[in-house]
């Protein structure tokens, strides 16, 4: 069977029918072996150079676990926030319920895929969004909560971009990750505009390294977001257009490396 056929087959099978498709695990294993055997893309070379025995399936599972990590955290954030008395105003409750619904759906989807492919589903950590009291009002003051929430959303978009890249060899999974990334970007935009409505001068997109979020633990969400070179093209003042640094950096979100993501998330995990 050609690799493209295998990919097509994977893509054509919906989660519902996967219940009975015991072949998925074999397909994925088979796929992994084939990709590992024939693919020598530079990304893979650099990733695998010190791990001669690494299998592509490991990368796919690693990417899904990575994406699941931030989705777990986001799901917990809104579950706690919606349960906290007096935190979220009634006018904003429906929006946060919608966001939580999407996050829970994303978690369920990845948990399903890990299970279906015979991988270990990581446990859900216990979260403390005060970051061990570094942000004492995170779950009691609405403005502080929004600041924490949009940092976690923006960081989440960036982590999903990283997951997309890690999933490059699998068209189905990488498309899933892209489709979740843009949903998460919608959530991020909504939360940021809620904060704007409180009088903070910010828009729905990340500008530079986010001057409105220079609080200790949170600012790491925006490290390296001030990139002004895309595909080796400088974007400030591009082709003579009046493009400012803010517009140039706002036009793209940047992937967040796994190591940086860990540094960002660790303070919020008990």
């Amino acid at each position, binding site marked *: 069977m*050609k*690799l493209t056929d295998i*990919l097509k087959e994977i893509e054509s099978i919906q989660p519902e029918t996967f219940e009975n498709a015991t072949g998925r695990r074999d397909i994925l294993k088979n796929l992994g072996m*084939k*990709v590992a055997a*024939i*693919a*020598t*893309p*530079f990304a893979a*070379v650099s990733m695998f150079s010190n791990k001669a025995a690494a299998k592509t399936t490991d990368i796919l599972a690693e990417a899904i676990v990575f994406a699941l990590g931030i989705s777990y955290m986001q799901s917990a954030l809104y579950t706690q926030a919606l349960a906290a008395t007096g935190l979220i105003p009634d006018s904003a409750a429906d929006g946060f319920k*919608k966001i939580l619904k*999407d*996050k829970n*759906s*994303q978690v*369920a*989807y990845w948990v399903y895929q890990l299970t279906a492919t015979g991988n270990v589903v990581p446990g859900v950590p216990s979260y403390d969004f005060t970051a061990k009291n570094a942000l004492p009002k995170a779950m009691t003051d609405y403005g502080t909560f929004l600041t924490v929430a949009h940092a976690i959303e923006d960081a989440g*978009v960036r982590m*999903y*971009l990283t997951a*997309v*890249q890690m999933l*490059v*060899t699998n068209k189905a999974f*990488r*498309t*899933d990750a*892209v*489709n*979740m*990334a*843009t*949903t*998460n*970007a*919608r959530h991020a*935009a*909504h939360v940021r*505009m809620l904060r704007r409505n409180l009088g903070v001068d910010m*828009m*729905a*997109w990340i500008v530079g390294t986010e001057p409105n979020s220079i609080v200790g633990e949170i600012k790491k969400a925006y490290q390296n977001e001030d990139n002004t070179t*895309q*595909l*080796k*093209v400088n*974007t400030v003042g*591009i*082709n003579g257009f009046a*493009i*400012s640094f803010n*517009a*140039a950096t*706002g*036009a*793209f*979100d*940047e*992937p967040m490396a796994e190591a940086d993501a860990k540094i960002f998330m660790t303070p919020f995990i008990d």
Partner: protein
Amino acid sequence: MKEVTTQDQTTHESASLSRRKFLNYAGVIAGAGLLIASCKKDDVQPTADADTINLGSNDTGLLNYAYLLQQLEAAFYIQVLKTPYSGMTKTEEGVFTQIRDHEIVHREMLKNYLGTDGIPPALENDWSSIDFSLKSSVMAKAKFFEEVTVAGLNGICRLVIAEEHLVILAKMSVVDARHSAVINDMITPGTFAEKADSNGMEVSQDPQSSIDITKKFFKKNITGINLPKY
């Protein structure tokens, strides 16, 4: 097809390589695994004659479609701000201005990257279905263009071969999704993520059906007949 070696990667980094070769090599190197099983001889370069724009094939064609979408969005917001509807608030103007600038960045970045493989810049638009003097018409089209672009870029992400192309498209698409959420909330509060399905995912769209609903906004005919398909 010749085997890809690390020597090719070195060559690929070399500035002396032509843009066309660069795009092809990028695809070959980053997508070697996928490409070997689907080696294609029919490499079609983009063309533009008096009536029709052909986006081309492979990654080049897909990036040209992304470029077309960004041309459409940029031209739309430029027009919105040039002939503002009556009663446009400062907030609305600010939102449109920043979105316009993002779309110009997307458009110009793709233009420079594609170089001689790009479709012509500034393709003339057909705005006959839009009344720029009416807020409702402008908002409805802004919503439409943003949603079509996000769905379209995500669909391209499924098909593109080179890793760096996948990443740049995803990086653009998430910002267009931010635009889309804001526009949606401006029209009907709380609809920022109405496009998410039951898995919390955007519903992406394949280039063929996406082109079918966007080409009417261009005066020339647009064809993506040589683009990769789902």
